[in-house]
């Protein structure tokens, strides 16, 4: 029986974690490789790196980080942020990432999803979607609209329609981030997660709003997600991944407990 996945997300800028990640003992660690190793050893099922490096000249720093991570951990990890071309995808995959995540670039040019799937396989094509709750309208009948540029630009594109389109273009997975829930720590946007997960056949990762292990249980039960993305609840040592998995297990969710 397939396990539900627990996926920590690390924001990286210029090769460093952007937020100091504090573990037990409050030691601040800014090194993405060491942090990835720690989460790997704690039982993370996968790791997401999100690159927020501003300039493309600094891309080389990220690739060196990806290479080091690939030599250190032996679970899948994905890299997103600023992936805009087949060449960007190729360099990240060759450096050792299992998957690449495209977001804004796919909204601007959906064809890139099909090209990536054709060149590297659907299994490594994740489409990241940033979604804002809006009033239902003719253009956005589901009441969920796609936004890009970190939530700053509304696209007049319906999230459900977009999810089905990316699936038909060959995406292997959707990482679904609710702008409304993100940072609130009040739980995932379960209506949105359920709506998308029920209407595509590819796996959906719930993202945005995790404040407790109970929220993660909700994401993979009521929300029907295959995986739950987390950040601050583990970065500051409040919860461990092993502890979260133990909680989910006792709540009746199948999770991987041997590593």
């Amino acid at each position, binding site marked *: *029986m397939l396990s539900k996945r627990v996926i920590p997300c690390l924001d990286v800028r210029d090769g460093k974690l952007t937020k100091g990640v504090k573990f037990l003992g409050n030691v601040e660690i800014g090194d993405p490789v060491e942090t990835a190793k720690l989460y790997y050893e704690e039982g993370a099922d996968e790791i997401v790196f999100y690159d927020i490096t501003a300039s493309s000249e600094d891309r080389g720093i990220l690739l060196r980080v990806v290479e080091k991570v690939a030599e250190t951990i*032996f679970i899948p990890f994905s890299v997103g942020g600023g992936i805009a071309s087949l060449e960007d995808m190729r360099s990240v995959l060759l450096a050792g990432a299992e998957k690449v995540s495209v977001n804004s670039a796919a909204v601007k040019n959906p064809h890139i999803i099909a090209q990536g799937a054709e060149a590297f*396989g659907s*299994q490594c094509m994740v489409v990241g979607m940033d979604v804002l709750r809006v009033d239902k309208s003719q253009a956005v009948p589901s009441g969920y609209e796609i936004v890009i540029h970190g939530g700053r630009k509304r696209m007049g594109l319906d999230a459900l329609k977009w999810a089905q389109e990316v699936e038909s273009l060959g995406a292997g*997975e959707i990482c679904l981030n609710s702008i409304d829930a993100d940072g609130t720590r009040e739980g995932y946007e379960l209506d949105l997660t359920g709506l998308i997960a029920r209407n595509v056949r590819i796996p959906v990762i719930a993202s945005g709003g995790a404040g407790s292990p109970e929220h993660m249980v909700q994401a993979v039960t009521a929300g029907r997600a295959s*995986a739950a993305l987390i950040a601050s609840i583990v970065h500051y040592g409040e919860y461990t991944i092993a502890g979260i998995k133990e909680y989910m297990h006792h709540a009746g969710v199948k999770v991987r407990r041997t590593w």
Partner: protein
Amino acid sequence: MIAILNYRAGNLTSVKRALDHENIPSQITDEPGVLKQALGIIFPGVGAAGSAMRNLQTSRLDHVLKALIASGKPMLGICLGCQIILTESMENSTQTLDIFPGISRRFDPDLRDEAGNPINIPHMGWNSVSLQRECVLFRNVPENAEFYFVHSFYPDPGPAYVMGTTHYGLDFCSVFGRQGLWALQFHPEKSGRPGLKILNNFYRYCLEQSHA
């Protein structure tokens, strides 16, 4: 030295990195001479069966592989490398290497999970293997270990060769073969410590054979 077969089917470096981490000497190669010298061969691969078969045929590596297997060279097929050693794949009705009788089938989209919901395709994530027979690759691997899968087709070999099964909408064969020639549907190189243990067990078997 373990040879990682290069037939231009996806990313071979993740297998290489896992072997490096375990201090297992290895080389990514498509040279028949190097393959022949190797203690054992890993046959990895992601992507589509059709293009992988074309690459193998164009380079005549299909014949090289069959000859090496006939000579008793240990081999480990992973993911697509596991499906392609069967007779046929339903992926674009491709004739494959026919080293074991069997067919690669697509997951039926009507299959349901334990909660009664339609399964996601691909089967992506961590799942367990229920061993049907003893297999040296799983020596000292915890019984409840899980492994990383990502695939839309699954191998269905002759029942005599099934070594382990996995449940996803149905029980499918995730480990098959015979002593010295194994095929895994999951990715040991991406399955944490239990996966690395399997690669080590393969290497140990190759070493023992070379000394036998």
